[in-house]
């Protein structure tokens, strides 16, 4: 895992949009008033979406003020979870899983494809500023390893060629459909091997 880099530049002024304010009300209503601080996670996520994929200090402070937490506590939370970015990322945030199953299934090929297409290595942003590559730990989709997460979507069963295709589609701003690149569900590549007899029945498996 890479070290958290916190962008402390205070030239980014963040405030929630009026639309977001309504969402915040909705989020806060899910928590008891005295447990309002629990809403810090969804609010940080919301702020990150509003601020363009990352959380400037001013956004952290805006969230802290909303839930009544100390700034330091919010910074601790935001730096603990990898889903929050504390420095700017590109329009397409590529998160490559390098944990054992993905690595065994060829996550290195994906890295190579990214480097060949965009000339970026892990923890780098492309010169155009459109792509940021972040290595992450297990994304929880080992069944269709290897995985590349692009913003909110998982692209599964990638290899060198399919990664290139995906990146080219992103470059054209017309991303491919997410999911398995070879069109399988969560089953072995060779098809289902167990529970064949109960196939088709309800409540099977």
């Amino acid at each position: 895992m890479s070290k958290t880099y916190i962008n402390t530049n205070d030239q980014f002024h963040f405030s929630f949009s009026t639309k977001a304010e309504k969402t915040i009300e909705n989020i806060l209503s899910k928590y008891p008033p005295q447990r309002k601080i629990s809403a810090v996670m969804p609010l940080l996520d919301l702020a990150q979406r509003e601020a363009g994929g990352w959380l400037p200090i001013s956004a952290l402070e805006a969230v802290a003020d909303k839930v009544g937490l100390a700034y330091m506590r919010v910074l601790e939370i935001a730096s603990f979870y990898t889903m929050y970015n504390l420095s700017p990322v590109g329009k397409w945030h590529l998160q490559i899983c390098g944990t054992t199953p993905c690595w065994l299934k060829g996550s290195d090929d994906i890295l190579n494809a990214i480097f060949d297409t965009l000339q970026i290595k892990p923890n780098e942003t492309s010169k155009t500023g459109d792509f940021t590559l972040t290595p992450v730990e297990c994304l929880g989709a080992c069944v269709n390893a290897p995985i590349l997460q692009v913003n909110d979507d998982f692209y599964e069963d990638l290899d060198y060629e399919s990664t290139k295709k995906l990146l080219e589609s992103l470059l054209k701003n017309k991303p491919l459909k997410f999911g398995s690149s070879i069109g399988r569900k969560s089953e072995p590549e060779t098809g289902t091997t167990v529970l064949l007899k109960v196939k088709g029945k309800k409540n099977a498996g």
Partner: protein
Amino acid sequence: MIKLTVDEKEIEVEEGCTVLQACEIAGAEVPRFCYHDRLSIAGNCRMCLVEVKPGPPKPQASCALPASNGQIISTNSKMVKDARKGVMEFLLINHPLDCPICDQGGECDLQDQAMSFGASKTRYIENKRAVEEKSMGPLIKTNMTRCIHCTRCVRFSTEVAGVNDLGALGRGENMEITTYLEKSIESELSACVIDLCPVGALTSKPYAFNARPWELTHIETIDVMDGVGSNIRVDTRGNQVLRVLPRLNEEVNEEWISDKTRYAIDGLKNQRLDRPYIRNKHGALEPSDWDTAFNKIKDGLSKVPTNKVASLVGDLVDVESVFSLKLLLNKLGVENLDCRIDGAEIGQDGRSGYIFNSGISGIENADALLIIGSNPRIEAPVLNARIRKRYLKGNFPIGIIGPKSNLTYPYQYLGSNSLDIEKLKNKSNSFHKILLKAENPMIIVGMGALVNDFGSIVLNFLRELSEFFGVVQKGWNGFNVLQTAAGRTGALDIGFTPSKKGLNAKTIFSEGEKGNLSFVWLLGVDSKDVLKLKKPFVVYQGHHGDVGAHIADVILPGAAYTEKSATYVNTEGRPQLARQATYPPGEAKEDWKIIRAFSEYINNKLPFDDLDGLRNKLYEDFPHLSFIDEIKKPRWSKFGTKGKLKSFELNSTINNFYMTCSISRSSETMAMCVDQLNRKKLVAE
């Protein structure tokens, strides 16, 4: 009660105990880093592993495991020893092992425990991680590579100090302890994290590379930087005070001390008066000797009638010196004497009217608190930590009439005007019901409410209010005056106040300014008002060349609090013994000795020859002072003057926490703290 067995020894412990506490009660040593009695339990260092049956067949962290009936605990089985060795190995993976250049060396928990419980060598050849140093202000030196992430500092600043400045950023191997955006910790207790840090990650900046712990002599004494009288340990080498550490006293300061207590000591080296001085014809002070100085005072004193003689004692003066001076002045028939140099109208009728009656630990028994004319955070940080401790237990409404300040707990703001005190009597007042309903209500009165022309009337009003709300009842006295000066309570106990015909401090200053006084003896008085005394002949007896020395005609060099064996009475009325740690510089002497010597010089010898004789006489006249460390609870009596409450603003008497006395004003470290604070204010503006 819970019965359990620790290392084949059967013991009984109270319900709610942890296994670690049970082991301690049984006398078994359990190593630990993150666990601390006064902080919440984190359970993240894993050093306190013990074997517990019945339970899972693995070692368990004893600090976070509740003790329960029938547990069989072993703290020295093979499993436990191996587990500790393993934990220690993990802790040392990324620890730099730079003990020879680390200030914690010799008093380091990690060093000691690695010796006792660790393996003899490392199996790691990989590179260690390195962490950048953090900026935490002028007091705390950081070396975060050494940090083992016990999070004691984070828990201390959040829980005890009440500031959310420290935190742990990142996770796993990349976790780093730091302050929010690398600002300094905004707390008056911040340097306590240095004591808490079990390794050398947070060390003392002013003390950096000064000494090794085994070179130091430890003297247990009392602090004089505020009215609390924190128990401290002064570490010296040669004749130099190198550092101050807190000493455990559950009743007073628990185990915390303020940054001023800890770091003002470098002021003991600067601006010292090390020999007598006399003002010459040209108006300049020139060095002299004791005989000449005494002669000059004798001359000055002989020509004037006693009603033109006055004497004041300052904030840092010990009981013995005040007592000696009072005896001398009584012999001379001087009636214009006062210790309340800030003009506070307290102390002339009844001891219960000027002490912290409930005691500092009494705060924990209160269930409602009203603070009047005080900012306890800067007037007595350690006491403020106690209020916060009580607040954290819950159900503790706090109301404030006085300065609106950033305290470390939420409060109901009831106004800043003296008339707001009167409004409390209205049933419609929001705090009226709270005080009435509370079983043990408490009022803390700061000097801010008493240092003005109506102080005595306010005091009377508050006494009546206390009686009305049951602040004073059988078995409970919650009427508390928060003294800001270490020597004040003692001086009031001695009765260093004007007689009925005598002038009080305020009038001494104003009459002195007009030229109606001829002779003023100042014992450690360094308030700004002293500058008014330009006309009379002024003797300044004290230890620092501060305000008082500037206008003096004769200077008698005295001893500072670390240089004498003396009694100080804290704001609770608790007499405590300060012990001598170093010798006064140059020709300076203990203050009582100077007064005793001068009394002989003018053929009015005081009736004692040594400290024991002085104390015997003192205890004879004031028996309650002989009960060291005990509070003799005074009877509730009438105090204050009847009158109509006038309107005035209540402010704290202290504006600048870091500089309140001649010692802290001479301290370079305190100056750096002020500088830091000012810079922060500039940024904020």
